[in-house]
């Protein structure tokens, strides 16, 4: 049972344009959400997070939007750069307890020069 879904396995974007990566979740108890970025042959690295008390969090070119009623979050990258080409994992978790997030299967982003 996939509690965190990334339905697009891949996304191709032109350099300079906006990249939008989507993520849906099913567990209404999740109250924090994260995005990780992964290059080939490396481990995932934390990119940005958002708590359920917010609907937007911005860090430079990266913005995460949370729509709790739709159980949906998205990562916007503006402007996209070739170095952003990587696999992006969405993750969600519940505060308290083990604090271990549940990961989606990732979306591979390719940014063309």
């Amino acid at each position, binding site marked *: 049972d*996939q509690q965190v879904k990334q339905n697009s396995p891949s996304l191709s974007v032109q350099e300079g344009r906006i990249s939008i990566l989507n993520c849906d979740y099913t567990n209404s108890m999740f109250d924090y959400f*994260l995005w*990780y970025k992964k290059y080939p*042959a*490396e*481990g*995932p*690295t*934390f990119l940005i*997070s958002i708590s359920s008390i917010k609907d937007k969090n911005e860090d430079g070119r990266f913005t995460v939007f949370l729509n709790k009623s739709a159980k949906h979050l998205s990562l916007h990258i503006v402007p996209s750069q070739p170095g952003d080409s990587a*696999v992006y*994992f969405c993750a969600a978790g519940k*505060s308290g307890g*083990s*604090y*271990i*997030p549940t*990961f*989606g*299967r*990732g979306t591979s982003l390719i940014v063309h020069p």
Partner: protein
Amino acid sequence: DTAVSQTPKYLVTQMGNDKSIKCEQNLGHDTMYWYKQDSKKFLKIMFSYNNKELIINETVPNRFSPKSPDKAHLNLHINSLELGDSAVYFCASSRFGETQYFGPGTRLLVL
């Protein structure tokens, strides 16, 4: 000065063998984890240790046994390897309740 390191990076072995993967973190974190990324690309938690004590043990065959000699190390021992164990195994660490830092992964191939 790698934060979370794993050895080996690649591991090719025969079915039925016993192997170990080592993980070390120099971040001073109190919690360490093992994840498995299977062919479908999901990252699934296997084990979590906090201050050398097991706090999470997901449904994993008992052929897999984590060992934490100290807070900076969490090794994974796998007995009687099976074809289905082929995957990428990631170690991670964090302060309890905070963002996880991942190692580079160990690519295990069982023939």
